[in-house]
């Protein structure tokens, strides 16, 4: 099977490429992104193309004629790009790649990385939506993801192929660039007042990668919530990480966001919404369809705060020291 990965330069894209390389079902793997992969790849062929360069992207997709497209070119605000750049890159990547894919004769399926942010957290919204819940995004990132899903569904309809929208929980991990992960690792962390916060769930970066690869094999038609079982509140996570929670209400969040940005951990709107209004989804259908068992949210938090110990190497010879 010929697989095309968009967003291969990201942590998730590179890991998915590595997993596909180890799977014999995928005979040819091509990846595109504006930045090179984060790790060495063996079989996958990488093309450095800016997501906004529609002409190059369309040419590559049509020439390669993929059988399955793994669209991971979804950029979370403040993960690697500032919010406007992330929004524009996400939209451009979806339109050019998925638009071109619709006219590929060999296409058999499309897998899109989306997020549970598409459900939104408007007042009265379901606390733990399943895939049948109406999407009603309330943040720019949620709207961006909803747009990607819509483009993918339209492309799938034109091509007559199934589209799997993987609505992932907030993806974090020890080496994953995530605004939530950075924020939670600050020494002092703003949180809603105790007992006035709602729980959220998380997804480990490795589980997200495995879910994407499983979806490429299953080619399910429709959205799937991919989340770690269980939930945790912001102050709980902060305490487990040995950080100090600072209760914040109302306009205090503006000050907290500005301070966090100065400390190198900007707080985008969807992350703030997650901390205040929670964010959980029912992931039973994805576990059934994809046969995955993501690690529990508790374990994801524990790994978020784990730091590998530094081994100081002593030079064994004068040559090595030089």
């Amino acid at each position: 099977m010929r697989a095309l990965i968009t967003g291969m330069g990201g942590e998730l894209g590179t890991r998915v490429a590595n997993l596909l390389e180890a799977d014999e079902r995928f005979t040819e793997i091509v990846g595109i992104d504006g930045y090179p992969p984060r790790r060495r790849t063996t079989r996958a062929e990488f093309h450095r193309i800016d997501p906004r360069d529609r002409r190059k992207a369309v040419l590559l997709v049509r020439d390669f004629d993929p059988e399955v497209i793994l669209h991971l070119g979804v950029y979370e605000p403040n993960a690697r790009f500032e919010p406007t750049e992330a929004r524009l890159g996400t939209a451009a990547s979806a339109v050019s790649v998925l638009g071109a894919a619709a006219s590929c004769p060999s296409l058999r399926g499309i897998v899109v990385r989306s997020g549970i942010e598409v459900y939104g957290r408007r007042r009265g919204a379901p606390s733990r939506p399943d895939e049948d819940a109406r999407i009603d995004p309330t943040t720019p990132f949620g709207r961006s993801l909803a747009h990607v899903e819509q483009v993918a569904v339209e492309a799938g309809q034109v091509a007559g192929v199934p589209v799997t929208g993987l609505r992932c929980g907030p993806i974090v991990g020890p080496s994953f660039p995530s605004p939530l992960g950075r924020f939670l690792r600050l020494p002092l962390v703003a949180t809603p007042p105790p007992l006035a916060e709602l729980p959220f769930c998380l997804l480990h970066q490795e589980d997200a990668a495995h879910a994407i690869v499983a979806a490429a094999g299953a080619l399910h038609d429709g959205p799937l919530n991919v989340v770690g079982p269980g939930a945790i509140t912001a102050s709980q996570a902060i305490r487990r990480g040995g950080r100090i929670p600072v209760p914040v209400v109302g306009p205090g969040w503006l000050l907290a966001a500005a301070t966090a940005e100065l400390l190198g951990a900007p707080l985008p709107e969807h992350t703030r919404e997650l901390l205040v209004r929670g964010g959980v989804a029912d992931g039973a259908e994805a576990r059934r369809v994809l046969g995955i068992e993501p690690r529990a949210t508790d374990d994801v938090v524990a790994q978020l705060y784990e730091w590998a110990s530094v081994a100081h190497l002593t030079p064994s010879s004068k040559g090595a020291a030089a």
Partner: protein
Amino acid sequence: MNVDAIRRGIPGAQALALLQRRARGEFDIDEWGLDPDLVALADPIFAARWDIEVSSAEQLPAVGGAVLVCNRRFGISEPWVLARGVRQATGRFVRTVGVPDVAPVGPFVRRFGGVLDRTDEIAGLLRAGQLVGLPTSRSLRSRVDAGTLEVARLEAALATGAPVVPVALVGRETGRAWRIAIGEPVAIPAAGGPLAAAELAETTRHAVQTLLDDALPASWWL
């Protein structure tokens, strides 16, 4: 050190250990916001406020989801009484429907088992094997009236096939003593459709009324 204190039976050692766990964030909270440790911490307060007697608790399923349809007068004590009574009798938590989605009240009440009044929310809880407390409408004038039950509120039970159990709550806001009478599960109509939902709502409401009539003494002037 705390474990030793608990073993030696030092008063308050268990509560202290629980508080220390909370300070470290080492407690569980479920996806709808229930905090079992906090419920355990607040239990002495509930015990001081309400003295609850539960009859026919064996009617409740030991595992799996069920909808407990109960009456309410003012609706202040009833959700707490139902949750504590069932927990005392069966060890299971009840998720009472009707929490406002406004901070800080909403998140706080959710810690004790409250959930939003939405069909999809109730269906999700039932699929997860939870007991859901569904109050009928308020009957402010009389405590012998079971209130009314909207047809749409039992849609989740019909969709998931969860048993519907009528429950009568008897007590006064001004008193400590409350009684919970649990009835036999109501048979779910085999045929689906709007008529089945209407019949189920009517049968359930009638069952709650019968339990109330049996539990309350007749008025002296009748």
